[in-house]
């Protein structure tokens, strides 16, 4: 649709979308690109990268294939990142809409809850949550979402308050539209764009938080993630830096891709000219 | 009167646009005159005002020449600019006094105390009620008409020779509009300044302009002394503009009340 075309016309949007598409494909076809369990011992330990064609990126201390680890790790990172961002947005949208529409004491109460969640540093919140409940993918997703929902809630509420005052909402009331229809047809579609632009940033943050949790050993121990790979490489950082560097690069590329995408999206959304 | 500025073949195209906003304008601005630039939306009148003041956005392609008789004018010092919307052209976090003094302090090198005295003087000249108190007020505490007076005071603080006003009354109601126009006329006369007044209202301009220039679709359609142009318009467009003017003497559209 129109938005997609506008997005692709910006250099950020095009590059970002392209990179994300590649990442998504890698994650999707991980079992094809690197068949078998990435955690199995595949070859000699600590093979240097670019020396052995069977292990293009080398092997780690136990002889596990680094490339397989990165490819499978992509799955986890993208999955957790997207799931956590969706959860954060869902919670944030609901709370923001409720506060913006209800007003009064409900608004006040909800905003104090948002304040509370915003005061606590989101990483510590996630950390505490996982430590208490235990490390598994759903718990990690929830933990990250808990730290991230407050920003979209605030933005949604601000958007609702602003859009509610526009003449076209007044016009809909004068025409006799039912309040529920006004909420869904007039207000909501015009509230969403900036919140969706925020979504991309939340995805990036979620991916980094997941990596950090795994790095600290608080991720799901049964799956491979970029964070856990980086943690593995910590012990031999001086002799075999590539073990941490490659997954680190993968992380950087992913986060940069998400940021570029969100920049492009922001440009595409704002270039929607309000011709008067 | 000699020409303060000679504009030849001025053409402007904004970045990203294919259609030019201004197409080959030839016009002289005479020193000390009151010139009204009249046009509807899209006529290029605002673009012209901004080109004159050097306020075009980055990337705007400008062709043609602007020749100033007194050398290249400095914004704020030689040219004062009044914008259409005083709520947008005044900084909401600075006091009125600070904003009016800003131009004078920067261009005339006044100290803070001198700047404040100058600001007070300017606020008095634009007939702001209770100027001493207004010095320390913020723009949002004033009405729309008062804000525009402040904007005019700020534009004139450094005593420029040329004042350009881009639709300064379009965002204000009729009564305030009449007051602001009277004020501008008075200030320009007292200061011996040149005034370029951009508007869509030909009747408003006719009340005080010496000359009028009619713009349409980026082109200059007609120019001349106000009385002459209004009495004997050369271009069909000018005649149409005059004909579509409506005031209290124009016959109403409704038929005589008969229910």
């Amino acid at each position, binding site marked *: 649709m129109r938005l997609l075309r506008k997005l692709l016309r910006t250099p950020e949007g095009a590059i970002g979308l392209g990179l994300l598409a590649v990442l998504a494909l890698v994650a999707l076809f991980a079992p094809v690109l690197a068949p078998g369990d990435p955690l199995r011992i595949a070859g000699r330990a600590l093979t240097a990268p670019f020396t052995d064609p069977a292990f293009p990126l080398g092997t780690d201390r136990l002889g596990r294939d680094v490339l397989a680890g990165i490819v499978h790790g992509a799955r986890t990172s993208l999955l957790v990142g997207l799931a956590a961002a969706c959860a954060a947005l869902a919670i944030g949208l609901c709370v923001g809409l409720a506060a913006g529409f209800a007003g009064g004491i409900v608004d006040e109460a909800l905003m104090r809850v948002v304040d509370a969640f915003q005061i606590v540093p989101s990483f510590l919140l996630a950390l505490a949550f996982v430590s208490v409940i235990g490390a598994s993918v759903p718990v990690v997703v929830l933990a990250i979402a808990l730290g991230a929902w407050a920003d979209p809630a605030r933005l949604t509420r601000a958007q609702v308050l602003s859009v509610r005052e*526009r*003449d*076209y909402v*007044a*016009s*809909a*009331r*004068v*025409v*006799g*539209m*039912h309040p529920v229809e006004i909420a869904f*047809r*007039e207000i909501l*579609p*015009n509230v969403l764009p900036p919140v969706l632009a925020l979504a991309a940033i939340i995805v990036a943050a979620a991916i980094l938080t997941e990596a950090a949790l795994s790095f600290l050993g608080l991720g799901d121990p049964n799956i491979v993630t970029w964070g856990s790979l980086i943690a593995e490489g910590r012990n031999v950082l001086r002799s075999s830096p590539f073990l941490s560097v490659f997954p680190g690069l993968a992380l950087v590329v992913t986060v940069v891709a998400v940021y570029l995408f969100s920049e492009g999206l922001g440009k595409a959304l704002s270039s*929607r*000219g*309000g*011709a*008067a | 009167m000699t020409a303060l500025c000679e504009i030849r073949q001025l053409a402007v195209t904004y970045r990203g646009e294919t259609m030019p906003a201004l197409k080959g304008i030839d016009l002289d601005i005479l020193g000390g005159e009151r010139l009204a630039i009249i046009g*509807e*939306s899209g006529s290029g009148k605002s673009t012209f005002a901004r080109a004159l003041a050097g306020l075009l956005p980055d990337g705007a392609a400008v062709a043609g020449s602007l020749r100033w008789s007194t050398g290249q004018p400095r914004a704020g010092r030689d040219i004062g600019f009044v914008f259409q919307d005083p709520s947008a052209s005044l900084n909401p976090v600075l006091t009125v006094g600070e904003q009016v003094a800003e131009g004078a302090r920067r261009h005339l090198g006044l100290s803070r105390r001198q700047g404040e005295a100058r600001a007070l003087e300017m606020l008095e000249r634009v007939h702001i009620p209770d100027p001493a108190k207004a010095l320390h007020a913020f723009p949002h505490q004033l*009405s*729309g008409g008062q804000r525009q007076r402040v904007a005019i005071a700020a534009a004139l603080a450094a005593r420029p020779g040329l004042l350009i006003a881009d639709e300064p009354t379009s965002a204000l*109601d*009729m*009564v*305030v*509009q*009449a007051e602001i126009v009277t004020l501008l006329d008075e200030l320009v006369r007292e200061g011996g300044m040149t005034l370029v007044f951009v508007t*869509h*209202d*030909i*009747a*408003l301009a*006719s*009340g005080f302009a010496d000359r009028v220039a009619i713009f349409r679709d980026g082109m200059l359609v007609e120019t001349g*002394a*106000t*009385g*002459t142009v*209004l*009495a004997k318009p050369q271009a069909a467009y000018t005649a*149409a*503009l*005059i004909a*579509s*003017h*409506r*005031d*209290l*003497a*124009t016959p*109403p*559209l*409704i*038929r005589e*009340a008969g*229910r």
Partner: protein
Amino acid sequence: MTLLDVKNLDKRYASGGRVVTALDGVSLTLSAGETLGLAGASGSGKSTLARVLTRLVPADAGTVHFGGEDWLALSGGELRRRRAGMQMVFQDVLGAFNPRATVGSVIEDPLRIHDIVPKAERGREVAMLLDRVGLPAAYAARSIRDVSGGQRQRIAIARAIASRPALIVLDEAVSALDVSLREKVLELLVALQEERGIAYLFVSHDLAVLAAVSHRIAIMDAGRIVESGPAAEVIGNPKSPAARALVGAVPRLIGQEDRNAV
């Protein structure tokens, strides 16, 4: 026949610790098919009156009878149904239409909500309304963003007449239009009034616009109606300071002879 009967409307706002009186005991009447011009400077309360009448903001005191019913007492579904009889045209700044709407959907909304015509005939009704306001029927598919200011105002009028109202409140409806477009829109409004017997409450700070279309004019100042009467009377012989200021503020075309005399 009195269509609208307003008695003693009050509206106060609390603003920054002070109480601002927007409406102070406002009373007026409007008959079917007539236009009442409501003039005033900014802050006179005329826009507030328009919003109180269209039930966008609640009144603090007073009564409004519309079509014989107690208009302010209505609420919920009952009010929504009755709204078909009183519509509004806003000053078209960017915010007057949902940016995601199409021209057709904007006009179809009232047709659908008030079931004016059966579903199968709505398309035709929209085309007919577009044609009536001087726009091609093909515009129905266009996005509302792809339409000029003057055209948008015509669409706003089409939307307002779609529900076959008895009264339309126009709040500075032509103030943002170019002078040449203004005349055409005013002509359209007058023609629609003659055809359909719609009454107008026309709010404006420009007395010249009101003189063109109003049967009667009321002048507002500081929340009160300070003068009212037949249009020609109020304009020709303004008694209150507010009325005199409004009359004096209308720019007149001054030709060469006049300027020399001045």
